[in-house]
């Protein structure tokens, strides 16, 4: 006999998720189930279209990370058309991508993740938002966040050819070169981004790390799961968001596998559970043991924290110094000269996100300082004899590894489309974090708002984009937590109005 708890839906998150928490006879948490209404017909929508439409179709799946879909789709097309992009084309794509990462990570920290730390996890929701952050740390921070978004959106707009939904990616390259004036603007923006990222890390240190209560919250086992970690690495095995090999390390930090993104089907399988239409990806060669962690469970995580866990330090100097500081704060031992034992405390994902913010800013400047960055050679024109008809493109989206896989007929008409989006990778760990939070709360007499927010915090650290994960849409809904018995009978209901 089990009891069911329903949380429906999650505020401050994309989509209309409903959480069911099943209790056993002893009142413990038996399992958690995270249901999301699904958008239907995406593959059918795409099949029959010309493959080259995909960068502008997929960037409309979701308004949150169109840039990630645009770049992944463009990379998949490079492979479909057998056209290797020119060096400057790769750099321009990566600059746009870094500008996007800066805005996305900034917004997450100040609007979503930060409020729990800066205002406090038990503060009323009316204060626990970006306005509360600005009131607490200084009104000028509001202006800084808006200015950061604005200067990076300007880069995305002129590089991408259109605001919000980029159109510049083409098989084999990028539609337009940049001028010297634009290069200077990118450099100036990147320098400001670096300063802003350092300011944000300073804020995190001052408010979280120096507060024993919050530090305890971050390093406690409430959200600790010893899973495998995944991330994209460059030729030196350091984090890269735009391109590289997929590296997976086991819970102890030993490299489990490193593979080219095009080989994903050999390494990733998807588990279908009868109670959810989201599929749970897992490491094929480890196997599915259910929603559990450890070295024998194929559950892996693809987040800012996991990317750092697989990386031999960061490729830029300031971010690398912060990287070392984080692992040393957690008392992790060095595994190699550059890498530490993985951190499995999920709330550290917020910290990792800020380190990535700094890395993206530094990387943007590095790229904009490349001598050939204004080169007009932005495109390799596809040669029909090189056409392959199959393309797998992958990037690190802010929320995890994003893979686009297209197959076409001889004319380039799509016959098959598959995607594994960032959030989907983390479906199992998200469910596990909800379960852990529920276990801690179920026996406590915590106030309703505390229960609601602590369960939301389990989600929020992953910044799940349910819009992508299910091809679903946003909407603000009130949050309801229902405690049910095995027959569906309502035992207790907590409700927050939207």
């Amino acid at each position, binding site marked *: 006999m089990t009891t069911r708890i329903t949380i429906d839906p999650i505020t401050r998150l994309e989509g209309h998720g409903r959480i069911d928490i099943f209790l056993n006879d002893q009142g413990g948490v038996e399992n958690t189930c995270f249901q999301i209404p699904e*958008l239907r017909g995406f593959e059918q929508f795409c099949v029959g279209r010309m493959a080259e439409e995909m960068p502008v179709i997929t960037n409309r*799946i979701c308004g949150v990370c169109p840039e990630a879909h645009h770049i992944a789709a463009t990379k998949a097309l490079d492979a479909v058309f057998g056209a290797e992009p020119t060096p400057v084309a790769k750099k321009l794509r990566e600059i746009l991508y870094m500008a996007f990462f800066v805005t996305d990570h900034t917004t997450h920290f100040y*609007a979503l993740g930060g409020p729990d730390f800066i205002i406090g996890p038990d503060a009323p929701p009316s204060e626990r938002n970006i306005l509360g952050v600005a009131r607490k740390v200084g009104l000028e921070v509001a202006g800084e966040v808006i200015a950061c978004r604005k200067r990076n959106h300007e880069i995305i707009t002129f590089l991408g050819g259109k605001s919000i939904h980029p159109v510049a990616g083409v098989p084999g390259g990028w539609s337009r070169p940049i001028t010297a004036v634009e290069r200077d603007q990118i450099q100036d923006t990147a320098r400001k981004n670096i300063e802003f990222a350092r300011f944000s890390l300073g804020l995190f240190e001052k408010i979280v790390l120096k507060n024993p209560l919050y530090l305890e919250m971050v390093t406690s086992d409430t959200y600790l799961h010893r899973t495998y970690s995944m991330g994209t690495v460059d030729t030196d095995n350091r984090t890269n968001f735009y391109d590289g090999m997929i590296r997976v390390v086991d819970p102890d930090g030993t490299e489990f596998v490193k593979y080219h993104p095009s080989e994903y089907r050999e390494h990733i399988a998807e588990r279908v559970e009868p109670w959810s239409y989201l599929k749970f990806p897992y490491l094929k060669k480890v196997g599915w043991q259910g929603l559990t962690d450890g070295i024998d469970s194929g559950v892996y995580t693809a987040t800012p924290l996991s990317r750092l866990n697989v990386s031999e330090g960061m490729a830029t100097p300031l971010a690398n110094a912060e990287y070392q500081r984080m692992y040393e704060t957690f008392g992790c031992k060095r595994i190699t000269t550059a890498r530490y034992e993985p951190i499995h405390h999920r709330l550290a994902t917020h910290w990792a996100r800020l380190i990535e913010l700094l890395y993206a800013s530094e990387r943007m400047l590095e790229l904009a300082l490349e001598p050939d960055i204004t080169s007009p050679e932005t495109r390799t024109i596809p040669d029909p004899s090189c056409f392959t008809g199959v393309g797998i493109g992958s990037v690190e989206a802010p929320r995890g590894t994003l893979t686009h896989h297209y197959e076409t007929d001889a004319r380039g008409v799509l016959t098959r489309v598959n995607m594994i989006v960032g959030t989907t990778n983390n479906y199992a760990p998200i469910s596990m974090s909800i379960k852990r939070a529920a276990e801690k709360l179920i026996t406590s007499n915590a106030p309703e708002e505390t229960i609601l927010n602590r369960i939301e915090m389990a989600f929020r650290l992953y910044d799940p984009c349910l819009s992508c994960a299910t091809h679903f849409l946003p909407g603000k809904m009130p949050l309801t937590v229902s405690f049910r018995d095995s027959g569906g009978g309502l035992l207790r209901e907590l409700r927050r109005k939207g």
Partner: protein
Amino acid sequence: MTAGTVIIGMGNPLLSDDGVGIAVAHAVAERLQRTMKLTVTELHTGGIRLMEAMAGFKRAVVVDAMLSGAAPGTLLQFDPADFVTTKNTFSSHDTDFATAYDLGRMAGVSLPEQVSFWGIEAREFDLFGEQFTDEVAAAVPGAVDRIIAQLVAWEGEA
């Protein structure tokens, strides 16, 4: 200083009725192209993005699909004072529109003096497709007329 008018169509044009706000925004601008200077913006998500899309304009009209339980095709107008949310004006990755608007004010962003929200009740919003359902398609001309009437009235006040 703010100037001009922006009409913001919200939603996803690939998801059946969810794209109705975008279609209406373009239709309004097309009808008014000889008589009024309008900037048209398409947006998928709300929150801070929506606030940013209005920055610098004197007036803003937002058109979005909604799911209020009314009959599909129903058109409703909201003023910011009584506005809660339509389908896409909230962003789960940052905040709701009201908070974003306050944030903009706090950050010194020039925001419109007049903002008007329009919601059109959707029927099919989770199926990929570029067609509206019949009720929603039938509601488009009326929505365009009413929004134009409001824009003309605003011009008259100026």
